[in-house]
């Protein structure tokens, strides 16, 4: 049975500045995180991710609502008694302690026996591949190494939940990619629940079991990476995660559970009916990813719109086309360069047919 390890019930956070300014950093939100999962809070800078994480760690108090960890209310529990550990964005290593002492810190303050400390520190440093660096001071380490120390320092305490606040944010791209894989592998190996904060959608998609997409203090959608990508429910999510065409269409007819017939200009096509709260006659936004669109000769089994190519960009693995569709809007199309075709397959000014699978288009609720 799946157990909830963290439950946020109606949690909100309001910061009151000395100037009297009030910042609603987190709107009342409910969120449950399951034991053992890699859970990611994804959103642009300033959307309240760190606030949510700090509420879980206990550094700040919620303005309303209750935080439960392992079923116990944490509202009155100070950070040093919570079964969670945090990996800070800028590592927050103790500059006066060497690597070994940094990692041993948590065990020492909890008065774990000397021998057990030594063993666990050794093991933790092994896990993050820093054996041999015991005597180094933090300032003698590279960014990636500091990152590993921070990780070891948290993991060595065997927390119920590990909170990570943009832990890879300060690393260069290549190291980031490597560390992403490593972190994911590590999480599966140790089996600890990770709550991971990032503003990098690609990172979130590759690492997470589930993602909560946030914007302006609100949690917009909580779902698996695939559903976040394939079935975004809001324009913000569709836009923030990957590239998306937002096309305006009018609903002509709804066949419940089946299809919605929408019109772009005077051309009618089908979209799978998934979205509630839309009605015949509404003007709606239809979202579709550029790579889900294709350019074809006319007349075939797909949903199809006549279009004219207005821009062609060669991107190496893909070619990106911008086409004019009925109704006057432009859509981006991404087609993989498989090598079977003459490249590019179409030129500016070509008349083409724009096709898609009706399951791949999504009518957005807002």
């Amino acid at each position, binding site marked *: 049975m799946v157990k909830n390890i963290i439950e946020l019930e109606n949690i909100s956070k309001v910061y009151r500045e000395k100037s009297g300014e009030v910042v609603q950093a987190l709107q009342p939100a409910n969120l449950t995180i399951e034991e053992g999962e890699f859970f990611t809070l994804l959103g642009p800078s300033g959307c309240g991710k760190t606030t949510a994480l700090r509420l879980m760690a206990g550094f700040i108090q919620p303005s309303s609502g209750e935080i439960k960890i392992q079923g116990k209310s944490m509202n009155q529990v100070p950070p040093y008694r919570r079964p969670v550990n945090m990996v800070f964005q800028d590592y927050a290593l103790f500059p*006066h302690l060497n690597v070994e002492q940094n990692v041993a810190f948590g065990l020492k303050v909890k008065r774990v026996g000397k021998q057990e400390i030594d063993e666990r520190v050794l093991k933790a440093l092994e896990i993050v591949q820093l054996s041999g660096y015991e005597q180094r001071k933090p300032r003698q380490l590279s960014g990636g190494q500091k990152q590993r120390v921070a990780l070891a320092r948290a993991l060595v305490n065997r927390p119920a939940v590990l909170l990570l606040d943009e832990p890879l944010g300060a690393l260069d791209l290549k190291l980031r990619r490597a560390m992403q894989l490593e972190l994911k592998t590590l999480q599966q190996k140790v089996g600890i629940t990770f709550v991971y904060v990032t503003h990098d959608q690609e990172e979130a998609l590759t690492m997470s079991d589930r993602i909560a997409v946030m914007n302006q203090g609100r949690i917009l959608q909580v779902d698996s990476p695939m559903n976040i990508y394939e079935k975004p429910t809001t324009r913000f999510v569709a836009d923030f995660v990957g590239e998306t065409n937002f096309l305006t269409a009018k609903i002509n007819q709804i066949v419940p559970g089946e299809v919605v017939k929408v019109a772009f200009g005077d051309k009618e096509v089908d979209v799978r009916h998934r979205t509630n709260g839309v009605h015949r006659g509404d003007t709606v936004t239809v979202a579709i990813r550029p790579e889900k669109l294709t350019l074809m000769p006319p007349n075939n089994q797909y949903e199809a719109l006549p279009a004219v190519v207005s821009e062609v960009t060669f991107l190496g693995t893909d070619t990106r086309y911008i086409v004019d569709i009925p109704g006057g809007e432009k859509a981006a199309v991404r087609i993989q360069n498989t090598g079977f075709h003459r490249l590019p397959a179409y030129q500016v000014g070509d008349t083409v047919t724009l096709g898609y699978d009706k399951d791949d288009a999504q009518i957005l609720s807002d």
Partner: protein
Amino acid sequence: MSTQNLTNTPAVHNRRGIKEQLTGIPRRRQLIALISPASLWLFFLLILPLATLVMLSFVKTAFGEGSTVLTLEHYRAFLQNTIYQRLLWRSLGIALLVTVLTLLFSYPVAYFMAYFAGERQNLLLTILIIPAWTSFLLRVLAWRLILGSNGLLNTFLMGIGIIQEPITGLFFSTPAVIITLVYIWIPFAVLPIYVSLQRIEGNLFEASADLGARPWQTFWKVIFPLSLPGILAAFLFVFIPTVGEYVTPALVGGPNGLMIGNIIWDQFSRGLDWPMGATLSLMMMLIVIVPLFLSSGLAERLGLTGGGDE
């Protein structure tokens, strides 16, 4: 940055600087480097006075015929005269006590200002420093008004009936010297400690609490060790000038509150025995320099110098 200067004594900086300047440079250029402004500054303010003192300590008299006669008699006099030695140790003891008391009073003040004063930090800093703008003499003499036989303390104690007669030993005594010096030094000690406390990254407290440390554990394991550079700086700021203090003991110490500085002063003024004064000064410096080196070694070992702990 200014905070680095607090942790590194200027002497250490200069030594390194000149060494770097001189290695690998042709000899002629080295000579030119030697008369750079920094070297001139060093020469006139440090080497010249020191050399003069050393020379003085080896001549029979400062003036007249004796000024060309080399002798070790002043050093002998120092080694044989237990009064000089007692006074030197006494001065060191007083200086140590003054320094420790000053640090004990200053640390909580600095701590409060750094972490609890919020927006009043600047106001408090100003209040702390204002007394240092008034005349040193005035501040020392102010303690007469408090500790003297007709002073505030005695009047108050008699007023509430705890004592019948004024306590006369309060003023013109060693405790009066200590109290006055502690009072004078507190602002100078608070500042470096305050700076070092302020420099500690806020997320280290959170990291500490996150790892399970209670507030007092965070203090002893994180805050205190990271404020050591400030404590060390404050220690040197207070200890070194206090060993050689002569104004305060002269004003409030009375006959029993004298320190080595008063004797040295006497040799140079009334006694007119400059060579003896020079010898005593050098002995005092020698003893003061020891903790200075110890502390810079300590700072290095703790990894506190250089300030580059990101």
